[in-house]
């Protein structure tokens, strides 16, 4: 018997006035995986997540969370999910402990249990030192951590993370990634949206690429990358090696023209099949060309995204203004980091 899908959504549609923010998206998220929803600003990621988390009415389509219908039984769905949004949804005027205690109590924990859960989470998220400080004194990274902690008090089996690292510095981002991986080892399922390609690549077992409210691709990061085509063989020639000879060998063996950067002795060889890399290396050995380093890389998700959507991952201006949920100051930062 296969386990019920954590999320099973078909034909999700959401209109904001004239704009169709989500235009018939199907999603199937399996239990225990990290599923990434990748797309530029305004693609409809947040809207889709908010529908699945019962925060926005679904205009059309169906969604089930662990088999519970989102439209018909939202109250039960809310008992199964934790939601952490782009903007910290904790109470600015309360302390960290008070926040967690309150959310625990609101979800039916007894006072002592709520306090214990708050203490445990603050420790887990490295916030114990700030436990009795008001949130207004928290840094952005601390707020995000507290926000995620608040979603975990009752240990829900499904966590929605809407752009969990947007606007965080690289170190805090890495910590957040570790935390997210940790959730899955405890048995959680995670649905995360991101506009960072490397984030989806790092975390997600499977990815859906969303653009203009539609799903344009889905698969593992590797599948998506290989769908975009070729691998690249990167060679660093040893000092004094004959670059011209190397070029001829590559041409003869792989049938491709390498991209040369002669001054550093570096060459990139586009390959249809990664196996060809071995042929190139054997050719070099036979021609007596020595190399300093070699690597075969798949295309990055940036290239994948470009190949699938026909535009890069930057904020898409005409879409951006129409969906208030997703327009934020974060777009520019994301674009820069991706570049």
């Amino acid at each position, binding site marked *: 018997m296969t*386990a*019920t899908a*954590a999320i099973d959504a078909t034909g999700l549609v959401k209109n904001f006035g004239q704009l169709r923010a989500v235009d018939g998206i199907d999603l199937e998220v399996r*239990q225990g995986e990290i599923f990434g929803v990748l797309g530029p600003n305004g693609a409809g990621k947040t809207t889709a997540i908010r529908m699945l*988390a*019962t*925060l*926005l*009415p679904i205009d059309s389509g169906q969604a089930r969370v*662990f*088999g*519970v219908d989102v439209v018909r*039984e939202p*109250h*039960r769905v*809310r*008992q*199964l*999910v*934790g*939601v952490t*949004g782009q*903007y*910290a*949804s*904790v*109470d*600015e*005027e*309360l302390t960290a402990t*008070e926040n967690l205690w*309150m*959310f625990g*109590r*609101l*979800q*039916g924990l007894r006072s002592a249990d709520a306090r214990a859960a708050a*203490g*445990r989470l603050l*420790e*887990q998220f490295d916030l114990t030192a700030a436990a009795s400080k*008001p949130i207004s004194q928290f840094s952005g990274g601390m707020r995000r951590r507290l926000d995620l902690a*608040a979603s975990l008090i009752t*240990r*829900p*089996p*499904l966590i929605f993370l809407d752009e969990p690292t947007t606007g965080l510095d690289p170190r805090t981002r890495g910590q957040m990634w570790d935390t997210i991986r940790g959730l899955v080892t*405890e*048995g*959680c*399922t995670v649905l995360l949206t991101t506009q960072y390609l490397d984030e989806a690549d790092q975390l997600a077992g499977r990815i859906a690429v969303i653009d203009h409210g539609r799903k344009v691709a889905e698969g593992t990061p590797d599948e998506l990358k290989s769908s975009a085509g070729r691998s690249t063989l990167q060679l660093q020639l040893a000092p004094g090696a004959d670059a011209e000879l190397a070029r001829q060998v590559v041409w003869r063996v792989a049938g491709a023209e390498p991209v040369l950067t002669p001054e550093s002795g570096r060459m990139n060889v586009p390959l249809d099949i990664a196996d060809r890399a071995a042929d190139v290396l054997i050719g070099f050995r036979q021609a007596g060309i020595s190399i300093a380093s070699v690597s075969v890389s798949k295309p990055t998700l940036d290239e994948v995204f470009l190949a699938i959507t026909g535009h890069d991952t930057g904020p898409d201006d005409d879409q951006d203004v129409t969906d208030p949920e997703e327009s934020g100051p974060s777009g520019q930062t994301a674009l820069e980091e991706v570049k």
Partner: protein
Amino acid sequence: MSTITAGPAPAASPPRAIDPAAAVARTRPRTGIAETAGQTLIMAWRALKKMRRNPEQFFDVTIQPLLFTAMFAYIFGGAISGNVQRYLPLLIPGIVAQTVLTTCMVTGVQLREDMDKGVFDRFKSLPMARIAPLAGPMTADVVRYLIAASLTFVMGVIIGYRPGGGALGVIGAIVLSIFTGWSIAWIFTWFGTIAKNARSVQGLSMMILFPLTFLSNAFVPSTTLPSGLQDFVKVNPVSHLVSATRDLANNGSLSGEVGWTVLSCLVVIAVFAPLSVRSYRRHL
């Protein structure tokens, strides 16, 4: 106990694995009454915490009763009742009603402000009763009504008011005005859930409150008014509240006016509480 733990207990017991099927089995289809009440109290706790951290929120319920009582008494006392002493039994219940009503308005404005904050997003995502985030702050506001009503009476006594209903009558009047405040607050809470922002709640509320409080018997005997206006004053619910408060504080009598006031409060709750919850839900 056979085992004794020395030193600090282990900080976190190793987390058991999450079992989705068990979690689904544990879900309940809706919140029960006891749960709803509990959640409302927690939301009230939150509001009280915030009040304690922002004491300036109490300005309106402290300054206004003190200032208005003294001001109205000395300005209108002579003109309306011959002297200040004789005006006070008429005026004090009027001020109590007025203060409690303006306090209600603040309830709606603050709710609106609160709803725009990120934390409300989380309240919406939690499996909690939809009425709790509305009823919680209103319940905490009972403290504000209590302060407003009591201070008005205290100020009145300081400048010479001697309530004929005695302590019991005054307490009755205070309890009645708190209950009225809490009920009427549902109207402003509803405004809070339908208005675009806090400013528009304030504007809308002022527009309704001003005529209601001044076109009543709160500050002058209604017999002095032109006949058309008298008719309005007689049906104005604020007049009933004022008369009921006077009956209780000045005569210690549970008059029909008290009954009418309580009845209209119940009607207001029955109409506006469901309206508020509905529009809060739609706000999602």
